[in-house]
Each structure stands twice: as C-alpha cells, then as structure tokens.
C-alpha cells in the first residue's frame, strides 16, 4: 500500500484511532459498565419475577445499549478538534466522508461491539428466553451501526460546543427512534412466536442507506460547523 494513497490513509486513520482508544482503555470500559448498571437496576425496580422481566428484557437491553453508545458519541470528534487533527483531516487530499467513515467504524468497534459481546450476559440478567437471543444479537448488530452513523452526523453539527451534552441526545433520539422500534419489535415478535424477518430487513435497508449517506452528511455538517 503506497503511503499517501486513499487506502493507506484510511488504514493509517483506523490504526491511529484504535491505538488512541487502547491508550485510554479504561475510559473505553465506561459504556460497558453503564449498560450493565442500567440493566441490573431493572430487577431491583420491577421485582425478580421472571415472567415480568423476560417481557421487557429485549427492549430494556436495547435502550441500555443505545444510551451507553450515546455516552461515548460526544467524544467522537472532540479530541481531534481540540488539537487541530480534524483540520488536518479536512485539508488532506482524501475524501472527508471516507475518513469520517473510518472514525465512525472505530467508534462502533470500540463501543458497540463490546456491548454486543456482553449482550448474552445482559440477557441472562433480565431472564431473556434463549430462543430470542439470536434475534437480539442480530438486531443489535444492525441497529448499533445505525446509531453510530446517525449519531456522527449530529455530533458533526454540534462539534466544538462546550455544553453540548444534552443537546446531542435531543438531536439523536428522534432520528434513532425508528431503529429502536424495529429492533426491539423484532425481538418481541420472535419472543411471542411471530414472524420477525420484516423489521430486521427494514433495519438492514436503513443501515445500507446510512452507510452510504451518513458519512457524506457528516462531512457536510462538519464543514458547516468548522466555518
């Protein structure tokens, strides 16, 4: 791979961002802990009855995962903005959308992937029936990249704001609600013995659309925010 080519640049960015997460791997655990805590609180609030918990299990896990991802979303561009690296990316000869796509990929790999890996643990905490677990994992695998992608566009719009925390959540949530409805809906359908492929296919379709459009939108939003 020739240094300076677009593929070399993408790999260099991927490697650098993964290295940065590794250097601060303590921080990377925060979303995991948050999701576990949120899920663990529900049996305390609702009582330990398995029937009650298993009814809400899929949806609760989905919400916990989504909120955990929102926590780390704010930091997506922050450090790059503060030390001037973002400027260098914008000025580089490579398509900004592709470079942002790499950053979004790292965000998903370091936040969502661990969450999906511990999803079976969360499922056990809430007594999710075993037959629903594969559907839950598939739905999470489809919905979490959607959240990273749509979230990145919203982060690009609020980049550089000092107190953007709640605003970012307000911006992302309406846009991510359909993914939540369909993702959790698929799990609940599977749990009750109904067909569940339709919502999963919808999720997949939106994901494909977002994979193409979201990086472009994030690049455009970033250019608006940086002027």
């Amino acid at each position: 791979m020739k240094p300076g080519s677009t593929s070399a640049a993408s790999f260099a960015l991927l490697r650098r961002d993964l290295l940065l997460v590794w250097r601060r791997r303590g921080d990377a655990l925060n979303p995991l802990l948050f999701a576990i805590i949120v899920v663990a609180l529900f049996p305390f609030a609702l009582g330990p009855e398995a029937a009650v918990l298993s009814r809400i299990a899929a949806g609760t896990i989905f919400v916990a995962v989504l909120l955990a991802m929102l926590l780390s979303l704010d930091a997506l561009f922050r450090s790059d903005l503060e030390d001037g690296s973002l400027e260098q990316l914008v000025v580089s000869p490579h398509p900004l959308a592709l470079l942002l796509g790499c950053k979004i990929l790292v965000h998903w790999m370091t936040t969502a992937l661990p969450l999906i890996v511990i999803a079976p643990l969360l499922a056990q905490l809430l007594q999710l029936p075993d037959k629903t677990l594969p559907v839950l994992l598939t739905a999470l695998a489809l919905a979490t990249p959607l959240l990273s992608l749509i979230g990145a566009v919203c982060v690009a719009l609020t980049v550089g704001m000092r107190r953007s925390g709640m605003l970012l959540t307000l911006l992302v949530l309406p846009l991510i609600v359909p993914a939540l409805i369909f993702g959790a809906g698929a799990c609940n359908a599977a749990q009750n013995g109904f067909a569940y492929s339709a919502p999963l296919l919808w999720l997949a379709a939106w994901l494909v659309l977002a994979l193409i459009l979201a990086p472009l939108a994030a690049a455009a939003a970033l250019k608006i925010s940086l002027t």
Partner: protein
Amino acid sequence: MNPLVLWFHKLGSPPYFYRFAGKWLPWLYALALICGAVGLYGALFTAPADYQQGDSFRIMYVHVPCAWMGLFAYLFMAANGFVGLVWRIKLSETLAMASAPVGAAFTFITLVTGSLWGKPTWGTWWTWDARLTSELVLLFLYFGVIGLYHAIEDRRQAARAAAFLALIGIVNLPIVHYSVIWWNTLHQAQTVSLVGPSKIAPSMLWPLLTLAFATHVYFFASVLARSRVALLELESGKDWVRALLPATETPHD
C-alpha cells in the same frame, strides 16, 4: 428580465422584505381572524353533531388544522433551509428559523387537543400508536432544530446547522403522514383527500377547510412578523436598521 423574477430577487434584500412584510402583516392578521371566526362559527354552531361522538368531535376543528400546519410548517422550514444552505440567502435562513417555533407550537396544540379528544372517544389520554408516536417524534425534531439554532453563537452558522438538521429529519414526515395507512392504528383513517371525494359530510367539511385556510394565513403572518424581528437583530449594525430608529441621537462618524 421578467418583472416577477426581479421582484423575487428584490424580496431577498432585508430592508425591502422588512417593508414588504410590514405592509402586509395587518391584512394577513385580519384575514386570519375573519376566516377563523367564520370557521369557528361553522364548527361550533352550523355543523351537525356527529352521530357517534356527539359534540365532542368538534375539537377536530382545532386539532386537524393544527396537525396539517405542523407538517406544513416543517416542509416550509426544510425548503427554506435547503435554499439557505445551497444559495446562502440570508432571508431563507431567517424564514426557516422563524417557522420552527410556530410549527412546534402547532404540533404541541395538535398533541394536546388530540389527547383531549381521545379521552372521551377512546377512553385514554395517550396511546403509543403509529400516528401519535410519529407526531411526538416530530415535536422532538422541532425542539432539536430550535435547540441547535440557539446553541450556536454565530447566527448565520446556527441557521445553517439547524437547517441541515431539519433536512435530515424530513424523513420523518412521510412516516407521520402515511402511518395511518401503513399500520392498523387506533387513530381514524384519512377522511379528507385532496383529490377525489372526501368521506366527510359537506356541512362538516366547509368549517374545517375554512379553519385550515385561516391557520395557513396565520402561519404566514406569524412567520413574517418573527422574520422582521430576526432581521433587525441580524442586521443591527447596518444603516437601514439605524434609519428605522427615531432620530434622537447626536450625529456621529
């Protein structure tokens, strides 16, 4: 050049727009008031009581026009936002941002009146069916746009960022409109259509259309008024704004 196109270009200039809007505002408000009064009279007195719901259905005359306006306002905001983003026209940015709070208010009224209507009719203040849910999501989208606009200091950059967000959220609009058809919902199906016969009695229909017209006129009046104020703020250093102030200061360089 075509005089209409010329006038359109002139309208983009803030001082001209300020005068133009100021001239038309009282007439628009008057028209909205009169049509609103006529429509309300028809809604409350002339229209016969519904055979199923009795008189409680009359809240429809507030609920439905507000629902239509909530969606229309979003389209207006997104269209102006698009123009403002692509062609950097200050007036479009201003109009887009001015219509956001108005649209949010209409959406809020829709939700509240819908809730008041739902209680006697369905027995519940709220339900999470597709139309209500997407209307609530629309309200949150409005809040997001307004919130983002107020969070950025540079007014023009703020307008561009908020307009961008509005365009992203526009996907939600068809979902709101078609949700009654796509999913079986508790909410009643569409009865008024733009083409073809409507499924509602004519004596009930005309007050509804009159009120719909009145709310549209009111929307434009409100947006024009807000835009005038916003333009004054945006252009506060300029000569044309200074010229509007009463001449009490001593001359300076």
